[in-house]
């Protein structure tokens, strides 16, 4: 085999792997669309579930998952970004910084059910938030923090030192340099972190089961301290607990499709913003 053929072989292998990923996505979406699209109607999207979730709509689950995503966005993003700034700009090589980094790496590997337990004991029990939207939202926020911190940290470290030097030499303080230069240039990477975190939070089931998700509700939560429904748990419930599993199969596909669209919708916003900032600050 000559060199050219070898090149060809590697290229084909790489391409095949990449295509495999695309294929998996296509099959997944294809399944959900063919199985569930027929079930998606205005009623399905805007009404309460009826008869033990076998009929009616999934509005409470949509809203529940949406609220969870918003809580994660509001809690996890600022804390994550600020921790990342602290790590990169203030504790780059100190003992504290190294310990912190180690903690973040380890937190990223903790299974989500363990976060559920943590949420159960801290938010539900100790702080007395009960089985509620806020307990679940805060639990998911803690769970996604490592993702948020890691993505932001990488984005912030990637801003060249020469830019910081330039700003400092013009008489900017450290904070002014961070605010005017480091953060804006790191934004695309931070948006990637947001996409990952929020998607992850939207898809989680296990931690919710310990912190406040309900099987079926006839009302939307009207405060942070109410119990709530969520799309992934709803799916899990219908696929395993429902009285007539086969009858709800199309509903399951439809629910999965809605979940996917919700996550995709949120991600699209972040992707558009990311693109805007990438174009705005061209290296």
């Amino acid at each position, binding site marked *: 085999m000559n060199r050219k053929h070898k090149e060809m072989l590697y290229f084909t292998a790489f391409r095949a792997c990449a295509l495999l990923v695309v294929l998996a996505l296509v099959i997944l979406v294809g399944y959900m669309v063919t199985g569930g699209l027929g079930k998606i109607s205005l009623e399905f999207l805007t009404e309460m579930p009826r008869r033990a979730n076998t009929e009616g709509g999934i509005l409470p689950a949509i809203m529940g998952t949406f609220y969870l995503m918003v809580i994660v966005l509001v809690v996890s993003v600022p804390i994550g970004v600020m921790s990342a700034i602290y790590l990169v700009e203030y504790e780059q*090589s100190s003992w504290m910084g190294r310990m912190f980094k180690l903690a973040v790496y380890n937190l990223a590997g903790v299974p989500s059910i363990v976060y559920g337990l943590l949420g159960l004991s801290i938010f539900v029990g100790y702080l007395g938030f009960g089985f509620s939207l806020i307990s679940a939202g805060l639990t998911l926020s803690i769970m996604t923090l490592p993702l948020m911190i890691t993505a932001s940290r990488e984005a912030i470290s990637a801003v060249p030192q*020469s830019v910081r030097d*330039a700003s400092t*030499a013009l*008489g900017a*303080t450290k904070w*002014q340099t961070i605010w005017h230069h480091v953060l804006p240039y790191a934004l695309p990477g931070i948006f990637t972190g947001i996409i990952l975190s929020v998607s992850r939070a939207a898809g989680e089931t296990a931690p919710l089961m310990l912190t406040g998700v309900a099987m079926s509700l006839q009302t939307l939560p009207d405060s942070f301290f109410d119990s709530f429904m969520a799309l992934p748990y709803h799916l899990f419930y219908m696929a395993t607990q429902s009285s007539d599993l086969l009858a709800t199969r199309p509903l399951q596909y439809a629910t999965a499709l809605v979940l996917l669209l919700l996550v995709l919708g949120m991600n699209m916003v972040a992707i558009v913003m990311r693109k805007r900032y990438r174009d705005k600050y061209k290296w």
Partner: protein
Amino acid sequence: MTTAIHAEDLNVYFDKNHALKGVTMDINKNEVTAVIGPSGCGKSTFIRCINRMNDLITNCTVNGKVMVDGTDINDDDVDVVDVRRRIGMVFQKPNPFPKSIYENVAYAPRLHGIVETVDGKVKRRKHTKQELDAIVERSLRRAALWEEVKDRLDKGGMTLSGGQQQRLCIARTLSIDPEIILFDEPCSALDPIATSKIEDLLVDLKKDYTVVIVTHSMQQAARISDRTAFFYMGEMVEMGDTKQIFEKPARELTEQYITGRMG
């Protein structure tokens, strides 16, 4: 000839590495002073003492005095932001911000605002759009870049050529009208034509500013500087009029270096 900067017994350590050893020298106002010497001899370290950029390096300790206008810039009650506003720096690699040409130059004036005395009270206010426009134009003109970019001020600074980027960085430094400008090998990433433009500019700038330039090019030092300091292994070996340093250096080491006989 008045003295702009007087460094006295300046010592710099990076952890235990004694990078600058008891440097004492005077830099004259409205002159170009060149700092030459082999790689690693402490040239950058020295000029970074003058605008306190070494503060950013955590394991770096600076001892000694750097007198500018009668005050030691290392004094505790000196505002480091003020030092850097009055003493600008241009770096080896052009480092414009990834923003528009206009924003690159307007950044520092915006940051500092205008300090005015109104009814005996010192007040800080923002620049008006017209004032900023004027500063941007004046700085770009002074950096000999205006004619080349005046029609595309809103284009990214990164879209310029290397030489233009370096002049943009000079314009950015001029935007807050410093008294002293430090250049750390400003031409080492540039081609000969861009280099000669910057050299002309430096000579022109000394009318209004005090210029200190670190350079690896002996020809460059000879061409543009009034006085030259030769550093070797962290010490300042010799300083004098450029002509004297290059024609009849007092020290053997200096002669070896400028004639290229140093190993």
